[in-house]
């Protein structure tokens, strides 16, 4: 076995070990730390599979944003504090274990029974890449070849926000959430937020811009921008906006709305829903990506901020 093979094998074992440890961890916080480490390791796995775009998304979303979401959820659960006392009974635990094992076996069987080589649309996508005007095949697939799926992914984020907001008590409806943050201003965190936020905004926008031709894109860049807003809120340099603010609502729906308008206009100009006219394909893709980035950058921090917890002004 050569050196890279040994690294890959070690990586695979490490991922499995961390996954097992995450499940076995007793405390929610420890499990979340394990899950974040798992996400970061998984992004190295994706990089080793030469899927750099997926690796970046996994690191930003799987490791970063989901980690923050889970930690804030765990903090809220700790306030309720019931899970520790009510341990599930033995039959219930056995049934859960059996169901999980069954699902794992079924998934494994499906993956092992896939034909080799698997059915692939990759050659077709590569052949038609030039027609989209973008150089990064991932971006072309996401925004042009399977744009309907990508639109629905954004709509799911929107539904998630509506779900979170609908947990608000009536008296707080339209008010502002309170994002997870330091109990009082901490010098080190304030310094980090002031220094890193401008750099992060530049990096995020850069990632979206190069996403047309190189690894990167709306999701990765949007996640970085979202992280910057989260840091600024955590350091108490800014407050979460009221959920009734018109600019917030507009920013949340801007991505899916622009995407939908572009898709609908395709039905008129190019004869098919979501068909992009070839002459304007690249600028259209860039415009859609820009608005999607805005929506992602606003949606993720608002998901972390949670339901409104202040009365509207």
């Amino acid at each position, binding site marked *: 076995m050569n050196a890279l093979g040994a690294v890959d094998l070690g990586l695979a074992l490490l991922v499995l070990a961390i996954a097992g440890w995450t499940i076995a961890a007793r405390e929610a916080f420890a499990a979340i730390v394990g899950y974040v480490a798992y996400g970061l390791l998984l992004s190295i796995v994706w990089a080793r599979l030469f899927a750099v775009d997926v690796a970046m998304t996994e690191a930003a979303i799987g490791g970063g944003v989901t980690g923050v979401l889970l930690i804030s959820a765990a903090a809220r659960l700790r306030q309720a504090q019931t899970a520790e006392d009510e341990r599930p009974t033995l039959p219930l635990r056995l049934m859960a274990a059996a169901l999980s094992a069954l699902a794992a076996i079924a998934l494994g069987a499906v993956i092992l029974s896939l034909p080799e080589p698997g059915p692939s649309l990759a050659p077709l996508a590569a052949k038609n890449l030039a027609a989209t005007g973008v150089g990064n095949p991932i971006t072309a697939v996401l925004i042009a070849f399977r744009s309907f799926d990508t639109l629905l992914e954004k709509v799911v984020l929107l539904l998630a926000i509506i779900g979170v907001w609908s947990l608000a008590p009536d008296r707080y409806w339209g008010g502002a959430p309170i994002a997870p943050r330091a109990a009082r201003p901490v010098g*080190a*965190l304030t310094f980090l937020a002031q220094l890193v936020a401008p750099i992060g905004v530049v990096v995020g926008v850069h990632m979206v811009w190069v996403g047309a031709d190189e690894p990167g894109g709306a999701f990765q860049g949007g996640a970085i921008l979202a992280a910057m807003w989260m840091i600024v809120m955590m350091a108490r340099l800014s407050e979460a906006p009221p959920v009734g603010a018109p600019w917030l609502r507009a920013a949340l729906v801007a991505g899916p709305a622009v995407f939908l308008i572009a898709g609908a206009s395709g039905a008129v100009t190019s004869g098919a829903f979501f068909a992009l006219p070839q002459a304007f394909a690249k600028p259209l893709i860039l415009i859609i990506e820009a608005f999607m980035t805005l929506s992602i950058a606003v949606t993720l921090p608002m998901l972390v901020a949670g339901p409104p917890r202040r009365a509207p002004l």
Partner: protein
Amino acid sequence: MSGALDLFSIAAISVGGFFFLAGTVGLLRFPDPLCRLHALTKVDNLGLGFIVLGLIARSDGVFGALKLVAIWALVQLAGATSAQLIARAIRRKEQIGAKSAGGSPAA
């Protein structure tokens, strides 16, 4: 020339790897949380610094090298801040522990 550069890369990345190994040993073996934190931040600084130095020799052009340096600087910033926050949390926990231990011996 490229042979010397390769040698430099290998040497620098190996030194970086050694620092990470030493830091991991420190993280596992040091007695209290603050010492372990110290081991961790030292490694972030020196280990990653040497690895970046070794990779700069292999980067294609000035921008690639600058990106590597930027990554190192950002990790410094993030590492120093999280170390500060963790240390602060440890101290607060200790103070609370000391207060509850000394304040009400009957309870």
